[in-house]
């Protein structure tokens, strides 16, 4: 999209409106500079990605005030998103100049930047919605030029310290999305990003093309917040992962390595590995002899991807449509979360026609563009990468090894052979992203299906009358990671199970029984004498309708709750190594210092 196309798309949209649009995301932009040119580019990018939005601008250069009194300054607290854009040269112009010659001024600049991050932290507490804050871009400011004839560049040193101080303070705040304005400026170039005339005339520093880029990046961040990122890339092999045809050219003949065109394929593989490492699963769908194709993975020196990086192989002579469907079943994901990459337009056309929900990407005619073909699509944007995301492929591979073992043994033998290690613990800050993810996506093994934002979960974790439990499972095949969540609340002598959920991948191996036993244990540590829980039926959670009676809970007809006396113990199944650690909860119950 060009700047002209974007502005015209946004103008057409605004012209089509009759009055204020209803039910669209409301976005407030506040900036240390004139930022109004951003509106059409952000608006048009969001139209493309998710639909209409209402965009308003806060008053010029009042970021501190907005952080401290958002309602008073923005005049409205019903925003879904607040985005703050700021530059050092707007907030601290004199200090910036003095920092080039005075170490004291440089230190003072850092302190001021941290104080601004403190203000952002207080906005985070006051504002419920998505908060996006830019990094400060490299300043276009006298003396900061990289080409000033001073070596080493004092400006670069000052800037890097500031950038680091800012990032470190913001990381402590948590749940602030970063718009990497500095990174974007690196990509575009400091000179190309600016329009010095408009900066001096209107306090509007950027060239139109750079506003377009900011708008597109901001739209990606806002859209990623809603989820919906693709989960799997299904890859063709010949002329996609390497150049040439393995069946004809052989191991020595295919193009892959450090020289063009092999370099293009190798760089593409490096990008795919990055995707895999943040939770996107890679699969192969190729019409080939499996032995020929797998030999490349096993024996070619220049391969970046190994067999272990691929969650599912479909190498045979059947159709790609069939292969993609099988991969979806095997990995237990929706067809609409898959991206298919192939160099053959006919294959792409067939998949696009028969599986319209799959996103198809054709290998570009210019192979030098292949490494970047997925990078700027935004298809894989996620708001936060959890540990589970990073280890997903390993977990999936462990799953299929488990399946094979399971088929060769009786159920009890299999369970004992697993060496299950189940750790139940009070969730701490580093667990909250994953806990929130599970709370909001688990449908089947979920007793109450209460959804919560990360903020609400954090509040519960800090509540002395509640405890947020996480369950982490590993066995001899590998780790499942954090796969279960329970929230317990103390009501006098009763401990109420507010939330109880588990990923379906771990069921039937003693995880439910162990989790129940640990929950009872935790409730006892809360000095409670009874455990109470509720089953709230939904169209999807029928599988847990009988969970409480199965563990000996009795129905209290008066309240509709299931009840169990804590004088009774629940048993951890045979062969499971279970532990409970709630020393880090807000209760501090098992801390020896308590009550001393």
């Amino acid at each position, binding site marked *: 999209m060009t700047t002209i196309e974007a502005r015209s798309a946004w103008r057409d949209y605004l012209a089509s409106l009759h009055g204020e649009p209803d039910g669209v995301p409301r976005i407030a932009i506040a900036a240390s500079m*004139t930022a*109004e040119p951003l509106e059409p580019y952000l608006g048009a990018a969001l139209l493309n990605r998710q639909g209409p939005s209402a965009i308003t601008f806060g008053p010029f250069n009042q970021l501190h005030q907005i952080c401290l009194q958002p309602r008073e300054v923005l005049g409205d607290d019903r925003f879904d998103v607040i985005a703050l854009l700021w530059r050092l040269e707007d907030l601290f112009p004199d200090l910036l100049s003095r920092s080039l010659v005075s170490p004291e001024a440089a230190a003072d600049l850092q302190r001021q930047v941290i104080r601004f991050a403190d203000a952002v932290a207080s906005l985070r507490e006051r504002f419920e919605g998505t908060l996006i804050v830019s990094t400060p871009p490299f300043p276009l400011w006298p003396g900061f030029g990289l080409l000033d004839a001073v070596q080493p560049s004092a400006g670069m040193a000052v800037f890097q310290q500031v950038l680091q101080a800012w990032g470190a303070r913001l990381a402590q705040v948590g749940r602030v999305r970063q718009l990497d304005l500095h990174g974007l400026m690196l990509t575009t170039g400091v000179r190309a990003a600016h329009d010095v005339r*408009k900066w001096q*005339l*209107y306090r509007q520093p950027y060239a139109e093309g750079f506003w377009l880029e900011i708008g597109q990046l901001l739209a990606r961040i806002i859209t990623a917040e809603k989820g919906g990122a693709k989960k799997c890339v299904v890859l063709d092999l010949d002329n996609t992962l390497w150049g040439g045809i393995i069946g004809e050219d052989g191991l020595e003949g295919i193009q892959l390595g450090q020289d063009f065109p092999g370099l293009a394929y190798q760089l593409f593989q490096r990008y795919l590995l990055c995707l895999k490492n943040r939770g996107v699963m890679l699969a192969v769908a190729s019409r080939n002899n499996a032995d020929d194709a797998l030999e490349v993975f096993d024996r070619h020196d220049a391969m970046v991807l190994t067999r272990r990086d691929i969650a599912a192989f479909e190498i045979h002579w059947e159709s790609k449509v069939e292969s993609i469907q099988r991969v979806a079943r095997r990995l237990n994901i929706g067809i609409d979360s898959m991206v298919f990459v192939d160099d053959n337009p006919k294959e792409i056309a067939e998949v696009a026609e028969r599986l319209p929900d799959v996103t198809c990407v054709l290998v570009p005619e210019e192979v030098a563009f292949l490494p970047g073909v997925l990078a700027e699509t935004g298809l894989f944007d996620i708001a936060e990468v959890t540990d589970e995301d990073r280890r997903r492929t390993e977990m999936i591979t462990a799953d299929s090894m488990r399946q094979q073992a399971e088929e060769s043994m009786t159920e009890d033998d299999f369970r004992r052979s697993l060496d299950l290690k189940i750790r139940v613990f009070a969730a701490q800050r580093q667990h909250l992203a994953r806990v929130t993810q599970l709370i909001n996506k688990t449908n089947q093994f979920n007793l109450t299906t209460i959804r919560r934002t990360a903020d609400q979960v954090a509040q519960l974790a800090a509540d002395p009358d509640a405890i947020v439990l996480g369950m982490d499972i590993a066995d001899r095949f590998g780790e499942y990671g954090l796969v279960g969540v329970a929230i317990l609340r103390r009501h006098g002598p009763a401990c109420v199970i507010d939330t109880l959920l588990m990923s379906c991948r771990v069921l039937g191996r003693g995880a439910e029984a162990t989790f129940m036993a640990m929950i009872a244990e935790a409730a006892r540590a809360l000095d409670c004498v009874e455990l109470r829980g509720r089953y709230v039926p939904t169209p999807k959670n029928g599988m847990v309708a009988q969970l409480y009676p199965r563990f000996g809970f009795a129905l209290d007809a008066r309240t509709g709750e299931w009840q169990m006396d804590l004088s009774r113990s629940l048993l951890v199944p045979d062969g499971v190594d279970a532990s409970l650690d709630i020393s880090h909860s807000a209760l501090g119950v098992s801390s020896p210092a308590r009550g001393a």
Partner: protein
Amino acid sequence: MAEDSDALIALFAEVLQVQAAELTDDSSPESVRRWDSLGAMALVTAIEERFNVQLSTKQIMKMNTIGRARKALQAMNVRV
């Protein structure tokens, strides 16, 4: 107003969100509501993109009527 001047009037009308018929070469920030500093900035962007020119800050500062914008463009051999 010359016939081929419509392009410039049309551009001002589009950016300032008024009917072209409401604008003349004498139109200025005083007579058009949206021709404030944000409007002026948007006009510079639109003119530069539409006619593939780069205006100097001197030209921008003097461009306080449509007629003056026309003169500035004509001086750069743009037929408006």
